[in-house]
C-alpha cells in the first residue's frame, strides 16, 4: 500500500520538473541559433586551415629521409616549364633544368610547352626578403615607438594637446594599409635622400658631397623604402600597445621610487620598464604579426616578382648601401604573383606550399603574442 502512495522517483515523474513549454523551446531555439553562428565561424576557419594544410604539406615533405623537401627552402622561385613529348609523356621542371634536358635529349620532340612565372624552385628568396623587411621595419618602429610611448606615458602630462595627439595616433592605427603604402610610395620611393653619381630630373633638391651627390630623389622600390613604410604603418599600433602596458604598471611603483629619491629616468629604468617589458614584448610581436602579413605596402614600395640574386649575395658583392636600396622578393608578394594562375595544376604545389609556410609563420607569431598576453594577465595581479 505504502509503495503505491509513494511511487519511485524516476526522472520522468519528478514532481518538481517543469514541463518544457513553448517559452523553453523558444529559448533553446534562440540559444542554438547563436551557437550555430559561433560554430559556423569556427567551421570556416577549420575548413581553411585543413584545406591549406592538406594540400600544402605534400610540397613541404618528402617520402625519403630527411622527410623535408629541402629544395623548397633552399632555392629561389624560378620559371616552371611544362611540356609534352610526342609520345604524350608530360614533363615539368624549372626552366634551367629544361634547357639542360633539351641538350641531353636532342631526339625527343618537345611540344605544347608552357611557362609559369615563379612557380618552380623554392621560396628562399621571398623568405629572406620578408625576414629582412620585418627586421628593418621592427628596428625602426620599436626604436621610435617605444621611446615615444615612454615619453607619452611618463613625461608629458594629460593636457588637451596630449590627449588630442593620443586620439590621433589611435585613429591612425585604423587607417587602411594601402593608404600607408601610397604614402611610402610617394615619400620613400621618390623623395627620400639618396647617394647618387648622377642627379635624376625628378630630384627635389641636391647637393654635392665627395665624388657624388646627395639627391632627394628617393630609393625607388627597395628594402629600405619597404621597411620604412611598414615601420610607419605599424608605429601607431606599437605606440598604443606600449603605452597601454606602461600605464598598466601601478602608480604606487613610481611613487615609491620617487619617495626613495630616484630621478624620473631612474624611476622609469628600475620601477617601470622591468614590469612593462613583457607588455612591450607582446606589442612588438603583435607588430611583427601585422607587418609580416601585409602585402599592399610591400607591393608598392619594395617588391620584385623576379630576382636572380639573393639579398645576401648583393650584400657580399655590392656593399651595404646597394643592399639596402635593392628591391627584394617577399613572401606575400610571391603569393600574389602566384594567384595569376588560378586553374593550373602545375602551379598548385607552389601555391599551397607558399601559403602554408606563410600562414604558419604569421600564425606562429600571433600564437606567441597571444600566449604572452595571457601569461601577463595571469601573473600581473597587483
Amino acid at each position, binding site marked *: 500500500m505504502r509503495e503505491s502512495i509513494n511511487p519511485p522517483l524516476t526522472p520522468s515523474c519528478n514532481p518538481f520538473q517543469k514541463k518544457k513549454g513553448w517559452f523553453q523551446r523558444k*529559448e533553446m531555439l*534562440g*540559444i542554438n*541559433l*547563436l551557437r550555430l553562428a*559561433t560554430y*559556423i*565561424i*569556427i567551421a570556416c*576557419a577549420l575548413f581553411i586551415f585543413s584545406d*591549406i594544410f592538406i594540400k600544402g604539406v605534400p610540397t613541404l615533405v618528402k617520402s625519403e629521409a630527411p622527410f623535408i623537401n629541402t629544395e623548397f627552402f633552399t632555392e629561389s622561385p624560378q620559371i616552371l616549364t611544362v611540356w609534352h613529348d610526342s609520345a604524350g609523356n608530360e614533363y615539368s621542371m624549372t626552366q634551367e633544368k629544361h634547357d639542360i634536358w633539351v641538350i641531353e635529349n636532342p631526339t625527343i620532340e618537345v611540344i605544347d610547352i608552357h611557362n609559369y612565372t615563379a612557380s618552380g624552385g623554392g621560396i628562399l628568396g621571398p623568405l629572406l626578403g620578408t625576414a629582412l623587411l620585418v627586421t628593418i621595419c621592427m628596428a625602426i618602429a620599436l*626604436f*621610435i615607438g617605444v621611446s*615615444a610611448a*615612454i*615619453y607619452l606615458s611618463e613625461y608629458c602630462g594629460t593636457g588637451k594637446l596630449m590627449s588630442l*595627439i593620443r*586620439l590621433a595616433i*589611435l*585613429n*591612425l592605427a*585604423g587607417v*587602411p594599409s*594601402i593608404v*600607408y*603604402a*601610397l*604614402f611610402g*610610395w*610617394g615619400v620613400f620611393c621618390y623623395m627620400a635622400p639618396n647617394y647618387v653619381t648622377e642627379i*635624376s*630630373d*625628378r630630384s627635389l*633638391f641636391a647637393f*654635392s658631397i665627395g665624388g657624388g651627390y646627395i639627391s632627394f630623389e628617393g630609393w625607388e622600390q627597395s628594402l629600405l623604402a619597404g621597411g620604412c613604410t611598414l615601420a*610607419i604603418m605599424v*608605429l601607431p599600433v606599437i*605606440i598604443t600597445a606600449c603605452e597601454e602596458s606602461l600605464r598598466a604598471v601601478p602608480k604606487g611603483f613610481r611613487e615609491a*621610487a620617487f619617495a626613495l*629619491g*630616484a*630621478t624620473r*629616468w*631612474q624611476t622609469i629604468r628600475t620601477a617601470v620598464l622591468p614590469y612593462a617589458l613583457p607588455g612591450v614584448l607582446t606589442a612588438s610581436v603583435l607588430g611583427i604579426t601585422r607587418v609580416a*602579413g*601585409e*602585402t*599592399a605596402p610591400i607591393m*608598392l614600395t619594395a617588391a620584385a616578382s623576379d630576382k636572380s640574386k639573393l639579398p645576401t649575395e648583393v650584400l657580399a658583392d655590392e656593399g651595404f648601401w646597394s643592399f639596402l636600396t635593392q628591391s627584394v622578393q617577399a613572401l*606575400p608578394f610571391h*603569393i600574389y604573383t602566384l*594567384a595569376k594562375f*588560378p586553374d593550373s595544376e602545375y602551379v598548385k604545389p607552389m*601555391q599551397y606550399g607558399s601559403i602554408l609556410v*606563410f*600562414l604558419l609563420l*604569421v*600564425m606562429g607569431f*600571433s600564437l606567441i603574442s*597571444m600566449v604572452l598576453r595571457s601569461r601577463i594577465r595571469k601573473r600581473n595581479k597587483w
Partner: protein
Amino acid sequence: MVPNTDKHKSAKLKQTASSEVASKSLFKRKRGLRIMGLNFGTDGLVKGFFGGNAYLAILFLLFICLFLWKSAIGFVPHYRTELKDARRSGIELSNIIADETKGHQGIYNILSTGFVHEKRHSFGQQEAVIYVYEELEALADDALEDEIDAYLNLDDGPEKAAAAVGLKAKIDAASRAIPAAELLDPVKLRIESLENISEEVLAQAIGYAQQYALDDYTTPAAIAAINKDINSQMGDYGKALNHCKASAKDLNTLHEAIEQNALATFDLLKKNREAEESVKTLTTGLEKIQKVGTSAEEVAKRKKQINTAESTIIKVDTNARILPVYALLKKHDATVGTMKEELRAGISMIPVESIVTQEAKDSVTLANKLLVEFDPIISENREILKNWRHDEELTTFDSLKAFFFGSVWNTGSSRQSLFGILPLFTGSLLISAVAMCFAIPLAVGAAIYVNQFANKREAGILKPTIEFIQAIPSVVLGLFGVLVVAGLLKDISQVAWLQWIPGFPIADRLNVLLAGILLAFMASPTIFTLAEDALNNVPKAHAEASLAMGANKLQTTLKVIVPASLSGIIAAVMLGFGRVIGETMVVLLVAGNMAKMPDFTAGFDVIGQSVHTMTGIIASENGEAVPGSILWEGLFMVGLVLFMISLTINSLCQRIINRNKA
C-alpha cells in the same frame, strides 16, 4: 609624492645623503649640467631623447596627412585641363553621340541574341558542323602551321598535288588524335541546347578542315553553303535584323568622322602638354645641376635636350580645328531621327508569329520596351548638343564634380583619361555591404553566445580561436578564395534547388558575393572581440534584476543586455566595416577588377557581377603611374578619400567606446 622642481630634489638629496641608508641607496644622482635653462644632465638628455622620438613619430604621422593632401590637391587643376582639352577638341561631343550609337548597339545585340537562339533551335546540327570545323581549323593551324605554310609556298604542279595528299593525311591524323570530348566541349558551350553531336558531323567537319588548308585559307564552299541555307530559311527574320543593323549606319559614319577629328586635335593638345611638362622638368633639373656645380658639357647637353623638347611644341588653333565638327553636328538631328525610325521599322518587320523559341520572343518585347526608353534620351541629347560650345569655361568645381560623380574610370587609353570615382566607391560599398550582411549576424551572434551562454571551458576555447582568425594574412585568404571558394560558390550557385536565393546563378567567377563572403570572414574576429567587450561592460545588476523579474536567460540577454551594450556593438560593427572597406588584397584578387558601374537594374543579381574597388585601383594601377602625372595624383585622390572615410569611422567609434567606458 612626486617631486616636481629641481630645487625640491636637491634639497631632498642633501637630506638623504646625510643618512646612512641613503648612502647604500640604489639611486645615485648627479646634478644635471644646465645650460641656458635646459637640463643637459643624464635626466635631461634621456627626456630629450624620448621626447624627440615622440615628436618624430607625431611629425611623421602628421606628414602623412599633409603629403596625401598635397599630392592629391594637384589633381584638381590637372583634371580640369584634361577635361578642358577634351571639350576643346570635341571628344566630349563625340562621347555624347557615342551614347546614342551604344544605345542602338545594345538594342540590336538583344535582338541578335534572340535571333541566334531561334537559329540554334532550328538548325543546331548544321551549325555544329560549322563550329567543329572552326575548332579544327584553329587546331590545325596551331599544330601544322609550318607544313601548311610550306605547302602554300609550293608552285602548282604534280609536286603540290603530292604534297596535298600528304597534308590531307596529316590533318586527318591530327584531328582524329584530338579526343572528341576536347573538340566538342567548346562547341557544346556555344550551342547549349545541343545534347550530342553525331559522328557524322565530326567526319564532315574534319573533311572541311582539310579543305580549308588546301584551299589557301579560304572557307570551304560547303560551309558557306550551310550558312547560306540557314540564312535563306530564316529569311524574313534575318532581313529585319539586317534592317535594324543598317539603321545606324549614317549615325555611325557621323560619329566616326567627329571622333576622328576630335581625336586628332586631342592628341596634339596632349602631346603639347607633355612637351611643356618635360621642358619644365628639364629646366628645373638643369637649375638644380647648376646650383650643385657641374661640367659645362653636361649643361650644354641638357640645354640641347630642352631645345629639342621645345621644338616639339606645335601651336594648335582649336577654334579652327573644331569647325568641321560643328558642320557635322548640323546633320546630327536628322540622322538620329532617321536612325530611330528605321530601327522601329526594322523591329516591326520581325515576323513575331512565326518565332518558335521563347527567348527570341522575349528579345523582341525587350527591344520594343528599350526603344520607348530610348526616345527621351535622344531628345535630351539633342537639347544638350544644341547648346554645346567647345569654348565653354570649365571651373574647378566642374573638375571636382567630374571626379566625385563621374561614372567612368578609364585611364591609359589613347582617348581622354576619365577619373570618376563613383564606380570604385560603389564597388567598395557594395562589397562591404554584402560582407556586413554575413558578418553582423555571425560575429555578433557569436559574441552573445560566448559571453552569455557558453560555459567557461567552451568560451576559453572559442574566444582565442576566433581571435586567432585575425592573424590570417589577407593575401592568403585572397588566394584561397581564388583557388577554392570561387569554384565552390559557382557550383553551389548552379544547384537547381537553391535558385530561390537572390543573385543565383552567378555569372562571373570572380564577383561581389565572393569578395563579400571572404571579407565577412575577415571582419568577424574584429566585430566579435569588440562586441564581446561591449557585452562584458554591462553591469551585472542589470542582468540580475531582469532574472529576478522572472525573465529567462534568452529574454534577459536580448531585451536587457544587448540593448544596454548596443552602442558598443554598433561601434564594433562600424570598425569592422572600416576594416572591410580598407582591405586591399582580397578584393584585388577576387572582386574581378572591372572598373564599371555595377548594373543595379539587375536587382539582386548585382552581387554576381565583377566590380573594382578604391583600394584595388591603387594597387593595380600604381605600376603605370609616373610621379607627378595626372594618374599618380588621381590615385592619391582616391587614397585621400579612403583616408577620410577611415578617419571618420574610427573617430566616431572612439567617441562611442570612450563614452561607454566613462
